[in-house]
């Protein structure tokens, strides 16, 4: 196996309940009410997480500019992807629109974040 001490180690024990330097904290809980209209479901979560979401999106844009030396790709995302959101299966189209609305982020960028798995396989 990959045995490159100290970058790899022998099997750990006693790490649970989590504590120490490899544990940054518990993940916080939220409720999403599926009886609500899709565009309203994520409002609470997004209003709490607006800042880190914006920071993450900004990094992706900075990275794109750095790699491709152009803003054209980002313009494409901001101008073309919104026209495709409506082609996504419900309720995801409306949920993504609600997230863009609540976060103030461009709709195309929120859609890109949600299809990143497929895109990233490049």
């Amino acid at each position, binding site marked *: *196996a*990959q*045995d490159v001490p*100290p*970058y*790899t*180690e*022998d*099997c*750990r*024990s*006693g*790490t*649970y*309940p*989590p504590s120490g*330097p*490899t*544990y*940054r*904290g*518990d*993940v*916080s*809980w*939220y*409720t*999403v*009410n*599926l*009886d609500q209209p899709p565009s309203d479901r*994520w409002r609470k*979560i*997004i209003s709490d*997480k607006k800042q*880190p*979401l914006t*920071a*993450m999106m900004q*990094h*992706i844009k900075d990275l794109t500019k750095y790699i491709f030396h152009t803003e054209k790709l980002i313009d494409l995302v901001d101008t073309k992807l919104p026209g*495709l959101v409506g*082609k*996504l*299966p419900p309720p*995801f189209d409306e*949920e*993504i629109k609600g*997230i863009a609305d609540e*976060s103030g982020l461009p709709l195309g960028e*929120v859609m890109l*974040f*949600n*299809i990143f*798995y*497929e*895109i*990233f*396989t*490049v």
Partner: protein
Amino acid sequence: CTSVVAEDTSGKLLHARNLDFGLFLGWDVKNSTWMISELLKPLVVNVNFQRNNKTVFVSTGFAGYVGMLTGMKPGILTLTMNERFSLDGGYIGVLEWILGIRQGAWMSFLTRSVLENATSYEEAKTLLSKTVLLAPAYFILGGNQSGEGCVITRSRQSCLDIWELDIQKGKWYVLETNYDHWKPPLPIDNRRDPAMKCMNRTTQKNISIATIYDMLSTKPVLNKLTTYTTVMSVSENKLEGYLRDCPDPCMPW
């Protein structure tokens, strides 16, 4: 990523995963961390999806991302997905989709639909193995009865393999990283063997949420890309999510 479904000697199923993401998307030299992995950690949330004030399913995910990568339908099933690399990859699926060929499902929307609507392990297994996808993937599925655990290896168009628990033959866990289980992993990214070594050393008699968390805390299963660890027990109706760090010295992936 590393996902595992294990059955203890009492027939109870446990499902756990490390979500590793952010490779090659920017390295922070000062802090020796991957930038995206660090930017994703504040976005990690556990979500309780309810209908008529009753829990439909619970998940660990990223705020702003409406698809599901990790979830549990209480009393019924647990589901995680790991990334699969293939030349016939998602970018082809996305191009086809943009050009109007829209038979394929977006991976994380399928997992969300399965968690929201499937009513049994078998139904979920059928949906995950037969639905045409836009991108290849590994689906790791746990049920609520002895022997109900499998890794579904998917290409975009078809199901390449379903690798199931087989308690009679001593196969009490199935563990998936990011390589087809019948092939050796990339030697420079072999998280599978260290993880399996720890599972085998733990033995079925001693497997528990605590000892599975131990395995997921062992480098390189825990690495610089690991954003969160989630452990799930469908019989105890328990989903616990933990944000992770991997201080130096630690493998970059």
